[in-house]
């Protein structure tokens, strides 16, 4: 009996400390307020033509439809799957269907979900970028709401999420929020339009930031670049140093056309341009370019990148990269990686060459691809796949050659690294 009492006394400070930490973290993620759904105050959002046009534009440049539309499915009716480290999450139906969409939501409830990530379904998974939408102006949220309400209702029911324990339990999201979510300070009017679009509606940091191994955004890694979770692509940093080779006008044109003499958008960025950024107004594109070029560069990251977990490293001579480059690449990209203006991007200082992570370069050499079609680039050029024409050792050698000569990256890929990539999902 006595030992139990002593054990209890010893445990008390630990329990109290755990409780205190819990209360502190709970307060840090905003306390109880996010979980109190607002009551419908009866406010009606005007659905006039100008508001709808504005809402359509904002929804487009916020790229809502890309996530909330399944391939071949009705626009905004949800059902697109997202692979995360903890399973697959399906996007929700945003059409005005009262049962399966958000037709029964008041504007207050919609705004609350946008800003706090909690809806009548409970806390929302952080694949939904509410952290960024918290800074949106009321008028913009109203316009997006009005536009979504004007869409044809779809009774589409997205497939149920397939998540591992404990991520499959919504209450576990409260724990996630306590650890990783810190609400933005109350929305102040941001007179920097570029920052408002990049760090708000555009949620660029979802891909272009460093992430912790667990998937949360790394502190201090905002727009510092990193491997995109669940996609097998590397997103470059967005800052003055990374973008110094782009004049503002050229960067703005790239955002809208998906191509430039320094490189075309590929991988996930191709989709962002195709579905979203090509609709940018020129003034907004310029504002974004100005803001991005004003961001001071972060420290260079130290972490060593590997293509896939644990590639089999073996010392071997990979082949003569320079020779392969002359035969396979130089016709289009030039002997010195200078490219051909208007047709083939330069490789010198290209993202794939200078990135610390070689995955983009390897993917492009293996599988090639088309630049996206946009008004600014209606008939794009393409990069052929080399997976059938070159051996893994040759692909390693030519990729090393490009990254060392045109990107000043120490690149030591081997055939085994390339073979580890063969099973990667083409998306």
């Amino acid at each position, binding site marked *: 009996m006595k030992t139990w009492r002593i054990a209890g006394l010893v445990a008390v400070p630990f329990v109290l400390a755990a409780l205190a930490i819990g209360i502190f973290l709970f307060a840090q993620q905003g306390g109880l307020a996010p979980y109190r759904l607002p009551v419908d105050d009866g406010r009606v959002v005007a659905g006039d033509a100008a508001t709808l046009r504005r809402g359509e534009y904002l929804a487009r440049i916020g790229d809502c439809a890309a996530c909330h539309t399944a*391939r*071949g499915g009705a626009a905004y009716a949800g059902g697109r799957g997202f692979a995360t480290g903890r399973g697959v999450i399906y996007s929700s139906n945003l059409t005005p269907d009262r049962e399966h969409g958000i037709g029964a939501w008041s504007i207050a409830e919609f705004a609350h979900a946008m800003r706090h990530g909690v809806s009548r379904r409970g806390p929302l998974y952080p694949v939904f970028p509410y952290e960024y939408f918290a800074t949106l102006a009321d008028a913009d949220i109203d316009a997006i709401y009005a536009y979504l309400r004007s869409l044809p209702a779809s009774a589409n029911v997205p497939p149920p999420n397939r998540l591992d324990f404990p991520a499959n339990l919504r209450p576990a999201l409260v724990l996630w929020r306590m650890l990783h979510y810190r609400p933005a300070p109350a929305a102040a009017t941001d007179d920097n339009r570029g920052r408002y679009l990049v760090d708000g509606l555009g949620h660029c940091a979802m891909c272009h930031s460093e992430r912790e191994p667990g998937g949360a955004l790394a502190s201090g890694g905002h727009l510092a670049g990193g491997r995109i979770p669940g996609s097998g692509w590397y997103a470059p940093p967005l800052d003055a140093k990374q973008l110094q080779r782009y004049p503002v006008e050229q960067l703005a044109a790239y955002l809208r056309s998906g191509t430039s003499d320094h490189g075309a958008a590929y991988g996930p960025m*191709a*989709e962002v*341009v*195709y579905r979203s950024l090509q609709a940018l107004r020129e003034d907004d594109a310029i504002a974004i370019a100005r803001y991005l070029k004003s961001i001071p560069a972060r420290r260079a990251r130290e972490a060593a990148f590997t293509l896939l977990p644990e590639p089999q490293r073996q010392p071997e001579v990979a082949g003569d990269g320079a020779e392969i480059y002359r035969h396979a690449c130089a016709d*289009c990209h030039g002997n010195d990686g200078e490219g051909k203006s208007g*047709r083939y991007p330069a490789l010198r200082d290209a993202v794939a060459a200078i990135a610390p992570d070689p995955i983009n370069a390897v993917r492009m050499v293996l*599988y*090639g*691809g*088309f630049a*996206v*079609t946009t008004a600014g680039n*209606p*008939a*794009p*050029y*393409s*990069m*052929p*796949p080399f997976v*059938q*024409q070159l051996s893994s050792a040759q692909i390693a050698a030519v990729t090393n050659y490009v990254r060392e000569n045109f990107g000043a990256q120490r690149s030591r890929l081997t055939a085994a690294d390339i073979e580890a990539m063969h099973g990667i999902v*083409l*998306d």
Partner: protein
Amino acid sequence: MLRATLLVLLLALASPARADDSADFGERLAACAACHGQHGEGVRGAEYYPHLAGKPAGYLFEQLKGFRDGRRASTSMTWYVRFADDAFLQRIAQWYAELPPRTRGADTGAAELTAERRRVAQNLVEHGDPARDLPACSSCHGANLAGLEPGVPALLGLPADYVIAQFGAWREGVRNGAPPDCMHDIAGRIAADDMRAIAVYLSQQSNVDGLRPAPAASFLPPRACGSLPHAQVAK
């Protein structure tokens, strides 16, 4: 009459004359050439990928959209066309359609049929099987199997593995044509060993004369398939 006129107008609008840069246009398709050949003639040693040259533009356009929108399944084709708009896909289709058709048969798959299996295949291709309500291939793809504008492709010299895979995809609903999807229905009526015989037989047929698809509505297929818009107009 009005619908026919509209269709003609639409087709005219959909295929703008772009002779100015047509030579240059092919350069944009380096990614396609890796598997389908520099001029859409196919690649020796890559005996799965179909040749594209000389197939009807309407057919090629539908397939490209199908890969983009999920009516056809090919991870790599979808990768290349997923962010391409209709106008660009139409130009790609037009570019391959205007190239001279491939004249030789497939490079492999020859001499793998017994005389008996070959007779069965040829009979199904030319006459079908009324007992199974199976139309002859030639009744839609043409007596010379060179296809029919704007939606029916030639069947000459396609790799046997490719044709077998298509039969399977139609049957399982992985490849979907515009409804009513005749090939889904037809593939469901062909026995597996007959599929193989037909595929090998077709792979051995060569288009030595470089025949192009028959002009639209030059003959009337027996069924109103979704891929035969002119047949619906004629009804």
